[in-house]
């Protein structure tokens, strides 16, 4: 019996495509953000609010993933930005090849910020690099405040935690301080914004974070956070 060393990543093909995408995004000056949460946390609502609030000078684009239906893309198209639905047909996450394929006929030079709304799932999307500048994890107060401990991988890999539906806090047994402590336990460097996409509360902070990321990208240092 002969043992051959393989020493390579299982997802090496995905990582290679993601590295190409990241290079493209950098060349075109596109801030690419990968938004991940459970189904129903409010990813599409956050994007609706964001597209509505973006300055006229900014061109956003959205790739939105779901197992089936064009519903999310239909909700987002009314803001006049390019939007494409990626229906995975059963797959529980987006991968770099799907992103590459769906970007093919867009004019990348016209896009400033690309939002990728991943398939609703806190587990699988965390393993697939899509070439994004940052992952953003969203958690809503109608879920459990221990979610960061139950699904640590995505909280560990995200730069920002968006805590959504804070207008419902008086009606649900969600301890927001405990949720934030749990997130910091998994990832001490994670930034947190509390928002309500229904009332608009906290959205200014989210837009400030977004603006800061764009400035950092333009300054030629996508990793810079301040």
């Amino acid at each position, binding site marked *: 019996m002969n043992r051959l060393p393989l020493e*390579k*990543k299982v997802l090496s093909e995905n990582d290679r495509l993601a590295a190409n995408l990241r290079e493209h995004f950098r060349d075109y000056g596109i801030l690419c953000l990968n938004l991940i949460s459970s189904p129903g946390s409010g990813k599409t609502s956050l994007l609706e609010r964001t597209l509505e609030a973006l300055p006229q000078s900014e061109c956003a684009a959205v790739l939105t993933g779901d197992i089936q239906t064009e519903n999310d893309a239909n909700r987002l198209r009314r803001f006049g930005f390019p939007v494409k639905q990626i229906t995975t047909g059963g797959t529980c996450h987006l991968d770099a090849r799907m992103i590459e394929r769906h970007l093919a006929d867009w004019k990348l030079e016209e896009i400033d910020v690309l939002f990728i709304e991943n398939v609703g799932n806190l587990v699988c999307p965390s393993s697939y690099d899509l070439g994004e500048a940052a992952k953003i994890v969203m958690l809503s107060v109608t879920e459990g405040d221990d979610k960061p401990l139950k699904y640590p991988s995505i909280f560990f890999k995200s730069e920002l935690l968006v805590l959504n539906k804070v207008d419902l806090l008086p009606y649900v047994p969600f301890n927001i301080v405990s949720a934030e402590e749990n997130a910091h336990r998994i990832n001490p460097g994670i930034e947190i914004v509390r928002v309500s996409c229904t009332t608009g509360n906290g959205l200014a902070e989210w837009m400030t974070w977004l603006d800061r990321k764009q400035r950092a990208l333009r300054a030629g240092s996508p990793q810079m956070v301040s």
Partner: protein
Amino acid sequence: MHEMGIASLIIEAVKKEMAGRPLDRAEKVGIRIGALTALDQSALQFCFEVVTRDTELERLKLEVDCVPRRHRCPNCPNEFEVKDYDFDCPRCGSFAPECISGDELELAFLEVEEHEPTTA
């Protein structure tokens, strides 16, 4: 939850490796999975059996090496395994958030039974 996809990627990698060895038979493939990947080992074994069943790789075994999450202390050179999200260095008590392993999803080795070409 995405163990089926991962099992298929492992098989693809084995097939690629074996393409240049038409006479040999792959017996076992070894992978390393880190605690942060959230992959379930028994689900992965099950998916692996399903994707190899009734194929030329039916006899192929999967060996999984689980890699724990390890952190490095910024104050003393200690490296330690993180349990229950306690990031304090067990040696000096400093807060040590730097993760050095646990995110692996790697192919480690392939064991093949080699067959010499028969001379006709």
